[in-house]
């Protein structure tokens, strides 16, 4: 390296920060963090941009264990919030933010069409476009007669070592475990998880990996979400999707939810985005692309999406679920060997 190279490098390295700092946070547009899969959420943001002319600068999430997650990024940034809107893949993550006083209540005009069970009256969070927890079974390994009907089948001795679920410390499985604790009580939930462990259930790092394992025939069936199951079907995998416990306590329904964040720097644009996300059009988009069930009545859905009204849903109070999640963390870590 000669002196010219050195000077050129020094100059570039010194000048670049000045230029790049100028490209930093702008007051234009809106900043949205989302834990809804990018493949589904980005087209929604792009549609909003086309409709409103407001640019969306988004932060997306990875599968549960590839990163600390968008929620925890929001918490880590609490001292100087960067995001305006958080679109969560479930309704319990917002409670973590509410608890930490990071949410700005906003009752959107669009929320009036959504059921009360899926929103907070004070506008701290509003749910829409839901997934459900389902069993995904490999048809080559499981005959029609032997298809599982309940999540309890994960612990059935006949399926020892042949089932899978995602790590209950992360993602929607956390919420599912919290919901079971809220519905059954702590003792029954822990007993069930202990049975799962005794039965050799394979713990994956994410719902996507459960899907992968089932599709590949590594396991006979597993517990995952409807959007993962739908992707498997779209890929042409020879799998069956079962909504569990329809004759019993029901399947857990997980609405996505949206919150406005306290300290948002682009309030007007944030409200516009929230209003758009809660619109019937977005529920339709999510139904078509991600097999999410609209919560608003009358939204057209494709044939592969089961209407939520046709589903026996588990009765849960999402606030209680959030409380249970926090209460069970230590036990879950020990259960997972951590």
């Amino acid at each position, binding site marked *: *390296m*000669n*002196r010219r190279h050195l000077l050129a*490098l020094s100059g570039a*390295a010194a000048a*670049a*920060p000045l230029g*790049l*700092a100028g490209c*930093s*946070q702008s007051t234009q547009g809106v*900043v*949205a*963090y989302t834990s809804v*899969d*990018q*493949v589904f959420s*980005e087209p929604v943001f792009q549609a909003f941009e086309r409709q409103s002319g407001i640019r*969306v*600068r*988004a*932060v*997306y*999430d*990875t*599968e*549960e*264990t*590839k*990163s*600390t*997650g968008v*929620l*925890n990024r929001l*918490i*880590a*940034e609490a*001292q*100087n919030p*960067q*995001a305006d809107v958080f679109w969560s893949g479930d309704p*319990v993550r917002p409670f*973590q933010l509410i608890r930490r006083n990071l949410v700005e209540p906003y009752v959107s005009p669009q929320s009036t069409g959504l059921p009360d069970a899926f929103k907070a009256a004070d506008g701290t969070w509003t749910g829409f476009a839901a997934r459900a927890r389902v069993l995904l079974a490999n048809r080559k390994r499981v005959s029609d007669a032997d298809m599982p009907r309940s999540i309890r089948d994960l612990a059935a001795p006949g399926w020892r070592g042949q089932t899978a679920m995602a790590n209950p*410390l*992360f993602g929607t499985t956390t919420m599912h475990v919290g919901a079971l604790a809220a519905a059954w009580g702590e003792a029954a939930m822990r007993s069930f998880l202990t049975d799962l462990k005794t039965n050799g259930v394979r*713990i*994956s*790092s*994410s719902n*996507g990996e459960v899907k992968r394992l089932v*599709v*590949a*025939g*590594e396991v006979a069936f597993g517990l995952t979400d409807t959007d993962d199951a739908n*992707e498997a079907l779209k890929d042409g995998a020879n799998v069956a999707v079962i909504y569990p416990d329809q004759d019993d306590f029901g399947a857990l329904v997980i609405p996505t939810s949206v919150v406005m964040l306290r300290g948002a720097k682009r309030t007007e644009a944030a409200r516009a985005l929230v209003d758009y996300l809660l619109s019937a059009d977005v529920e339709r988009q999510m139904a078509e692309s991600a097999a999410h069930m609209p919560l608003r009545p009358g939204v057209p859905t494709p044939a592969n999406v089961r209407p939520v009204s046709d589903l026996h849903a588990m009765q849960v109070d999402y606030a209680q679920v959030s409380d249970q*999640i926090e209460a069970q*963390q230590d036990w879950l870590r020990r259960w*997972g*060997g*951590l």
Partner: protein
Amino acid sequence: MTAAGGKWQGPSVVAGAAAVILIAVVPPLIATFGQVIGAEDVLAPFATAQLWLLFARSLALAGAVTALSLVVGVPLGILFARAHLPLQRLLFAAHLSILFLPPFLPTLGWFHVFGRDGYLGGPLSAAILFSDVGLVLALTNVLLPAVTGLTAIGARGIDASLEEAARVAGGPWRAAAFVVVPTAAPAIALAGVIVFALAFSELGVPMFLRVDVYPELVFSRLGGMDFAPGEAAALALPLVVLAAALLWIEQRLAGGRAVAALGGGGLGVRAPLFAFRPWMLGVGLIAASISLAPIAALLVHGAERGGLLEAGRWIGAAPVNSLLASSLAATFMVMAGAILGVSLARQGVVGVWLDRIAVLAFVLPAAILGVGIAYAWNRPATNWLYASVLVLVVAYVARYSALATRTVAAAVAQTPRSLDDAARTVGAGYFDRLRLQLGMAPQALIGAFALALVFSLRDLETAVLLYPPGGEPLTARIFTLEANGPAGVVSALAALHMLITFMAVGLAWFALRPRASA
């Protein structure tokens, strides 16, 4: 010859370089470990045997990966560096390519090959893959090129007369085993440290293969619903001891040895040590294949399931974001590393202590460092940095500066101090002497920049936690799309990532390569 600079020229330059590293590394470390103070009951897990068993298990697994990588990678590096091999550059580049990707992607490729329903798989291969053995093999596959590459750099850098004298006295094999390898020990030791640190802190691959590792314990406090950075930082405390241990071991293996001989012709292109034999080409082809195979499997899987051609729709500005942040970070790392690496090679106090801090930052789980960076820099006064791509630059420098500094140090350590002394006696100033030392080890800058660039480009955990909204780098985009995105898109973007890395490294080599003297 320039007149000697003022006596403060050297110290002020070193201080400036040190400042680059300190500013990047120290605030997040303080912010990270500061979380321990005030967090409740953070030391309670240390009373459990389970924690220590998990720690020991992770050490053993990382040790196995390192040992296997060294056993295979050192001879492979000698082969690539000192044998006459047709298609040498192509095979070497292909072999190195797997290092460009986050480890999870090649492992996913192997899953498509050896999973129960894989192209070559069955129950037995699946059982092996999803086991400790599978983890060791998968991580070795990904990290082996670090050993190969650094060994090659070290082997090419040794004094030609040492090698030739050994070759004349004992033949090429003894020369390689007893002279080239020991003399290249600083570079090999560096490779060992890198592989061990990366293998130990890797999270995605063990979780995918369902092998319990210590970093999972740390991650459970940062990635779950219960965000507890204080606990996570406390759990990272043993890693401080680990970093110190790594440094001590490395120094025992490679440090402190004087280079007694002056080299004549050691810097130019010299004849291969080993004449061509057909089996060498076979080894080279195997080395290239084991790197390319999992990527090919990803692409085939992606092509089968569709979406390869959709990659263009999803790519956005991610490649530009990646290149911008990584190139800038690598530039800072090399500029600081060139100065601090020389200081480290000559056992300068500043170089030695900064190296220790930088190695600690490298060994820590990326998520911890990322959270620390957020705490340190996400303030109104520094929002201009945090909310721009500069936060990624800072993050990459914090995490990977040790690589650049140590690569320079390893190369400079092989050049005689007397040459610097000679320059000093004729009145050369600090910059001229610095240029002289770096000129004697031209491969050092290329290697340092390449390593810094490759690792910055492939970074995932820090990038995902910190990238500015709308400014995600390519790795982040690959993994955010991996969640239910078309398999073909993920495969295509992974291949594109490799291609971009190759091009970037190639450009760097072209810019930094030593020119033939007039």
